[in-house]
């Protein structure tokens, strides 16, 4: 696990450590189990085709959770993710690489808290941002 990041270490424009994952069908079934979303769109090819899609698709919220992993791993046990949100603009298919990323867009102190704003997103193997969003994280001070 990475060392704790502190507010003083952060600068605007900095990219935080991304996470890459190539989810296979088993991963999506495990996500169905964990999230409670058993929509056959995510594991039954015939069902997906009946909905007009060429094949099954990755749950939007799987990508949201991947962005969440990037943020929580960066913030560490002393950081707190105050909020994060994304929109599902593009679909992703299983067995293709998805990368979740984040870039610091602002840092400020407000009401005695060290606030960091970020752009966050998930992109597909071609680099297309399928799942764009933003996040607000509170970090500890070194002092």
């Amino acid at each position, binding site marked *: *696990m990475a060392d704790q990041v502190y507010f003083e270490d952060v600068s605007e424009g900095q990219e935080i450590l991304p996470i890459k994952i190539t989810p296979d069908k088993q991963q999506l079934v495990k996500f169905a*189990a*964990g999230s409670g979303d058993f929509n056959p769109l995510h594991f039954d090819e015939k069902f997906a085709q009946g909905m007009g899609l060429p094949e099954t698709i990755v749950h*939007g919220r799987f990508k949201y*959770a991947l962005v*969440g992993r990037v943020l929580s791993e960066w913030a560490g*046990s002393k950081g*707190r993710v105050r909020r994060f949100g994304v*929109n599902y603009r593009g679909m992703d298919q299983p067995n293709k690489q998805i990368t979740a990323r984040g870039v610091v867009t602002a840092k400020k102190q407000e009401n005695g808290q060290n606030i960091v704003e970020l752009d966050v997103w998930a992109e597909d193997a071609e680099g297309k941002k399928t799942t764009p969003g933003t996040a607000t994280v509170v970090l500890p001070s070194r002092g």
Partner: protein
Amino acid sequence: MRAQFGVESAPWTYEVTTTSVRMYARGIGSEDPIHYDVDFAKSQGFRSVVAPLGYLGTPVYLPGQNDPTFGFPRRGGGPRLDIPFKRLLDGGTETEYLDVICAGDVLVETSHLADLKLRDGAMGKMLFITNESVYTNKETGKVVAKQRLTSIHY
């Protein structure tokens, strides 16, 4: 439909357990011990294993009262919407945290309609519905998280 804004649903109980936190963490491919190892989580200052970001517990499932595919409670109170579209996609998710959520937490959730937009899109007319849920810790009575979910009906 706009008259339905702010109409609060009946409350529903969401449970965060060690088993459910671990299954969610496995579901997102995380191996961070903070989600799996209770002793480790406590050594880091948490009450128990920490819920991965985005996971706010699993709604209590009662046959006939919850949607069998998605698990969400169909319940009394809340907005009555007659949606003329049959197909559904996820539009967006946003979560705001006021506290850390850990296994052992029992949360009470209520939701209300927060936004409604009708747009012309590539697949025809699309209705964007955003519901906001507020999660309160049953034991402390404090709001611990809010989540906005946008669904696209087309």
